[in-house]
């Protein structure tokens, strides 16, 4: 996690190849990735102006670093309205995500952080969750489940699944228990992973969250930590190792589930709460693009799980994997400060799904944004977390 000053050499390296914001693909095609008809950088699609392109952002960051440009409202908008989906970072050898975060850190240090993002960070600092709710309420979903606080396998529920989508958290425990795994849960000792802090320019706060979480996880004796939130998974996988070393293994529940299915330890029923015959899957940026090159991208495991669900037909979306359009949430940085961007991008993504198809995903932010898009557009699409969808169908 470098400061802007430490990224000078990277900023100087841009030679304007401009793979980072094009439409369609041949260069990515060349790298052995699947071709796509008409991809465009999401924030460029929304805003239209070249100044929003990843290439331009490198240049603007270089100008700020050189002292040639003052931070103003438009510069803040350019950096904070980008959902940091990570396609540019995947296509270009330059570390776009790192530069974006370093630039936002500079903007925040100079006091220009958008007010909604500052408030979310205040929530983190004061209540240790993004919603500003009392942190002990984090365990409400688990009240009747008698989950231990110590154990070799720990479930890290994250803010969204603890407060807003508890059905997914409960589904995780159900899946693990069905397979004979008695997972622990930290309850009120679990803090937000710090993703929003890191992506809104307050990396000290992210570090504070990370240090706490790593300390309590080590203390509970966990050898493996399981996540249901794509963002928490991403933060532990890619950010935490840069902050401190840890000895536990990090897995998303969809990886665990995929293994359990292969081992025959879980059986999925065809009947859930709603009758569904066709499903598709939305790849969250935090499960894929953010890990490209690091080998943590999870494109196969969710598909393996879906293929194991009896009675449903899987329809792959034209844009999937690397090319899956972002839902626009942008680590809650965008959805809180530039909600119109999120609305535009989530609706665009939703329109790529056929009616009467269940849209499954593994990120609570994506679930929330896409559900809102369903409501706004009045489309007949069920949006669900894959894990909760499976949880309903466990015998």
């Amino acid at each position: 996690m470098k400061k802007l000053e430490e990224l000078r050499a990277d900023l100087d390296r841009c030679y304007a190849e401009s793979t980072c914001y094009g439409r369609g693909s041949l260069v990515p095609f060349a790298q052995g990735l699947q071709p796509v008809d008409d991809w465009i950088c999401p924030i460029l699609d929304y805003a239209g102006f070249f100044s929003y392109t990843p290439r331009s952002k490198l240049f603007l960051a270089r100008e700020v670093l050189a002292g040639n440009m003052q931070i103003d409202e438009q510069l803040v908008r350019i950096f904070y309205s980008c959902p940091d989906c990570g396609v540019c970072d995947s296509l270009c050898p330059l570390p776009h995500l790192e530069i974006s975060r370093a630039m936002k850190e500079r903007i925040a240090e100079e006091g220009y952080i958008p007010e909604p993002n500052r408030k979310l960070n205040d929530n983190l600092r004061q209540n240790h969750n993004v919603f500003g709710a009392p942190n002990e309420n984090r365990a409400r979903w688990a009240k009747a489940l008698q989950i231990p606080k110590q154990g070799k396998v720990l479930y890290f529920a994250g803010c969204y699944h603890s407060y807003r989508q508890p059905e997914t958290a409960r589904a995780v425990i159900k899946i693990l228990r069905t397979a004979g795994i008695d997972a622990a849960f930290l309850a009120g000792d679990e803090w937000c992973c710090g993703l929003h802090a890191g992506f809104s320019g307050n990396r000290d706060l992210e570090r504070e969250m990370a240090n706490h979480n790593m300390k309590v996880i080590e203390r509970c004796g966990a050898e493996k930590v399981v996540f249901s939130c794509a963002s928490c998974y991403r933060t532990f996988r890619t950010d935490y190792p840069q902050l401190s070393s840890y000895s536990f293994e990090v897995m998303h529940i969809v990886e665990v589930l995929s293994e359990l299915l292969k081992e025959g330890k879980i059986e999925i029923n065809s009947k859930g709460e709603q009758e569904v015959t066709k499903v598709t899957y939305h790849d969250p940026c935090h499960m894929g693009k953010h890990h490209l090159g690091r080998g943590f991208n999870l494109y196969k495991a969710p598909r393996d799980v879906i293929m194991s669900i009896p009675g449903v037909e899987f329809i792959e979306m034209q844009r999937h994997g690397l090319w899956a359009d972002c839902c626009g949430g942008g680590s809650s940085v965008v959805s809180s400060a530039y909600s119109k961007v999120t609305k535009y991008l989530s609706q665009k993504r939703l329109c790529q799904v056929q009616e009467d198809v269940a849209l499954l995903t593994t990120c609570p932010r994506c679930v929330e944004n896409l559900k809102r898009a369903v409501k706004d557009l009045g489309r007949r699409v069920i949006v669900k977390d894959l894990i909760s969808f499976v949880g309903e169908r466990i015998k």
Partner: protein
Amino acid sequence: MGSNLVSRLKAIVGSEHLTDSYVDRRAYAYVNGFGGDFSYILPDVVVLPESTEEVSKIILLANETKTPVVPRGAATNMLGVNVANRGGIMMDMSLMNKTIDIDEGNMIVTADAGCSVYRIMHDLDKIGLEFPVAPLFTSAVQIGASAACNISGLHMTRFGRIGDNITGLEVVLPTGEIVTLGSGAYKSGLGFYHRYTGGPDLIGLFVNACGATGVITKVAVKVRPKPNFLGYLAYGWRRDQARDLTAALDKVQRNPVYDCYLTNHWFYTKRAEVLGLPPDAHFLACFTIDGHNEEALAFERDRVTRISEEHYGVAISGLAEFLVAPPHYRIWTAVTPWIKREQTFYFFGPVRKFADIYDLFEEVTTKYGFWNYEHRPMWFSFHGRNTINPFPMIMMNNPSDQEELDRIRRWWDEFNTRVVEMGCTQYNLGDAFPKENYEALGPLWDLTRKIKRFLDPNDIMNPSETYSGDTA
């Protein structure tokens, strides 16, 4: 620029498609090359038209108020031709990207100016057709700007630059009129099947003009079926064998191979071992060959092999397949992981002068202290039937080092002027180039400027010293 003009522009394109913020304008001042990279000449306003009619209205307004207009695509041109030298309106063509019409019968693709060339290539690929030029750069590159700058690329040996394949254009003249050029001008609906309409070839007025004579809003390009039988050969030559290489290139291209691509070893130094490059190979030539069947392909392979070996080329197995075979075209992506910022310019020269041009490259590059690994004086060239299109590059050690920048600038100016003195031609026109390079054209340059003045009496279209300097 007055607020009245801004509000009239907003009325044309809508407020969401106009910006006059400093940060946005600064971003549009940036071009990765001399003439733009270090320039702080900002447009006054940036607009994103969505239709030819909007472009026309903008130009009419600009004419009325004598406001400069610079049309711009993805800004990957490195010669500084898309900079708002005199402020005014920067017209970003990106939103004019709605239509790609493939006429399979006539094998013509017609697309809005803002359409991605790679998107067009991808659409063609799905039905077994191929775009004439495989550009070096990326999916951001737009068809209108590609025509305006007349891009070159792989397959140029057989098919020429994009301009050689254009059969029609829709343009907005500097006076705001919308004109269709080529057979598409007729109302018959038969489309852009032929470039010529009986009179002079007016398409050429807009190709390679970088927007100085009008705004290209639609482009029609000849395409072709993908070849069934392609083969690849690569040979290496030592530095002291430049004349042997020249002779080989000349002979191979007389009966033009599908494509010829040449680099020096600096380009792939970091991958030399992986690519199996002979340690003393300074020049690397990749030939793409074709044939209508296996037998014809074998005949062509024998011909190129014989010529290369007669001229002491050393065969390099697998290199050409890796670098120039579709769909990968790794010539550039093979080096991007470690490339640094570089400065380049591009020009054209006769194949037969290759050795002399390269000697000059080494001489000037050595003079300015860049003939070393640190600055990796890379050279690659696309090849026309009898021409080479070199891209000599100096890798920058530190783009913020003013001394190094000044030195590169002097290298750039001297090499640029001297290749033109030799008889080579420039790729584009622009203020970044030495004035002598235009004046060397004599009466042709006078004619060019007369035409510019005729078409654009108020000098609003991409104005620059190049066209309207003191003697205009």
